[in-house]
C-alpha cells in the first residue's frame, strides 16, 4: 500500500473525510480487494493498539493479581506433593514414629478444630477493584483500606460507592465482609441475605459468608442451617462440608 492509502484509512476512520470522498472510499472498498484487505488489517491493528494503550493499567493490575493468586496456589500444592514424595522413602519403623506423631497431631487437631473460628475459614485474600468504573479514587480508597485491614475506612468508602452504584453485587459482598470484620453483624447479615436470595454470581459466596458471620457470632445453629443450603457446585462447598463436620 502507498502512504497515501494509510492516510486515507485514518481519515476515514476518524470521520474527517469529506462526504464525496467517503462515497468514493466505500465504493473502492467494494471493488478493490487488496484495498479492502489492507483497510481491514489497518483497522484490526488500530483496534489492537487502542486496547493495548487504553487498558495498560487495568491489564497490569490484573496480571499482578493473577501472579499472586497463581503463586499462592502453586506454593500450596507444591508443599503437599513434596510431603507425599518424601513419605515414599519411609521404611517401617519410620512409619511407627510417623504414626505416633500423627496420633499426637490428631489429638492436637481435635482440640484445635473442635472449636472452629471465623478466622480459620475467612480466606478472602486481597481484593482488586480499580479496573473499570468511573469513581476511581473512591475505589482505590476502598481497595486499599480493605486490603490493609482498615475496615472502618473501607466501610465508609463502600457505603459511598454503593450509593453511586446500587446494584453492584461485588461491592455489596465486600461491604458485608467488611461489616463482619467490624462486628456489625446486623448490617452484614442483611446484605448477605439479599445477595443469597438474588441471582448474581456472588450468590454462593454470600451464603458462605453468611455462615461465617453466624460462626463469628457464635450462633452455631444458625451457621449449620446456612451451611446446609450451600449447593454442591459452590466454590466453598468443600470448606462448608468441613466446617459442618466440625460443628455437628
Amino acid at each position, binding site marked *: *500500500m502507498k*502512504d497515501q*492509502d*494509510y*492516510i486515507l*484509512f*485514518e*481519515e476515514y476512520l*476518524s470521520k474527517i473525510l469529506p462526504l464525496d470522498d467517503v462515497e468514493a472510499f466505500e465504493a473502492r472498498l467494494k471493488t478493490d480487494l487488496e484495498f479492502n484487505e*489492507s483497510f481491514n*488489517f*489497518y483497522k484490526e*491493528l*488500530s*483496534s*489492537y*493498539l*487502542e*486496547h*493495548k*494503550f*487504553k*487498558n*495498560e493499567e*487495568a*491489564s497490569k*493490575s*490484573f*496480571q499482578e*493479581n*493473577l*501472579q499472586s*493468586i*497463581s503463586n499462592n*496456589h*502453586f506454593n500450596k*500444592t*507444591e508443599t503437599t506433593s513434596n510431603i507425599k514424595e518424601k513419605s515414599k522413602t519411609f521404611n517401617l519403623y519410620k512409619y511407627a514414629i510417623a504414626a505416633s506423631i500423627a496420633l499426637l497431631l490428631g489429638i492436637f487437631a481435635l482440640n484445635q478444630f473442635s472449636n472452629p473460628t471465623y478466622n480459620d475459614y475467612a480466606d*478472602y*485474600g*486481597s*481484593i*482488586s*477493584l480499580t*479496573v*473499570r468504573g468511573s469513581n476511581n479514587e473512591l475505589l482505590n480508597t476502598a481497595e486499599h483500606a480493605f486490603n490493609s485491614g482498615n475496615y472502618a475506612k473501607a466501610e465508609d468508602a463502600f457505603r459511598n460507592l454503593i450509593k453511586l452504584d446500587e446494584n453492584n453485587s*461485588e461491592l455489596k459482598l465486600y461491604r458485608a465482609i467488611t461489616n463482619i470484620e467490624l462486628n456489625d453483624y446486623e448490617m452484614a447479615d442483611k446484605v448477605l441475605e439479599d445477595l443469597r436470595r438474588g441471582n448474581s*454470581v*456472588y450468590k454462593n*459466596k454470600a451464603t458462605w459468608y453468611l455462615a461465617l458471620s453466624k460462626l463469628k457470632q457464635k450462633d452455631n445453629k444458625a451457621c449449620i442451617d446456612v451451611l446446609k443450603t450451600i449447593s454442591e457446585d459452590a*466454590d466453598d462447598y468443600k470448606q462448608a462440608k468441613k466446617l459442618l463436620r466440625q460443628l455437628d
Partner: protein
Amino acid sequence: MGEKKIHEDQKYIEGLLNNNSFIIQAIYDKFVPKVVNYIKLNNGTTEEAQDIIQDTLVTIYNQANEKELKLTCPFDAYFFLLCKRKWLNELKKSSKKEVTINEEILSKSDEAQELAFETSVFGEKEALFAEMFQKLGNACKDLLAATFKIKSMEDVAKKIGVTYAYARKKKSLCIGKLTELVRKSPKFNQLNN
C-alpha cells in the same frame, strides 16, 4: 452468531475481566489441577504448567477486553483445550517430543474446540503484534502511545510539538508501517494458514 446461547460459565469470563479475586481463585481451585496433571504427563514440569496457565488466562482476559468474548460452552472444556494447545505449541518450539495426546480427558464439544481455536489464534496474533510493535522506531512508538492514550489529536500534537495535521499523518504512516512489519513476518503466514 447472535443465536448462540451464552453459557452460564460466562461468569468466569466476567470475573477475569473485572479482576475479581474470588473468581480467579475459583478457576485455580476448580480447573487448574487438571491442566497441571496433563502437562506433567506430557513432559512438562509444574513450573511450566504454572506459566502456561497464567499466559492462557491473560489471553482470555485480552480477548474478552478487546472482542467481547462470549462463552457458548463450559469454561472447563474451553480452558483445558486452550492450555493444551499452548503446551503443544511450546513442545513443538523446544522440540521436546513424544506427546501423548489424550483426547479422552474431557468430552469436548465442537463449540469448545471452535472457541478455543479462536482464542488461541487471537493470542498468537496479539503476541505477534506486540513483537512487531517493538520493531518500530522510537518516534513511531512514542507517537502511537500518545495518540491512543490521549483522546484528542490536538493535545497529542501540542504535547509532541508538531501540527495537528502532521501528527495525524504520522499516526497513519506508523500504523501502516506496523501492518507491513506484521505481514512480512513468517509467523503471520503460518497463522493465516
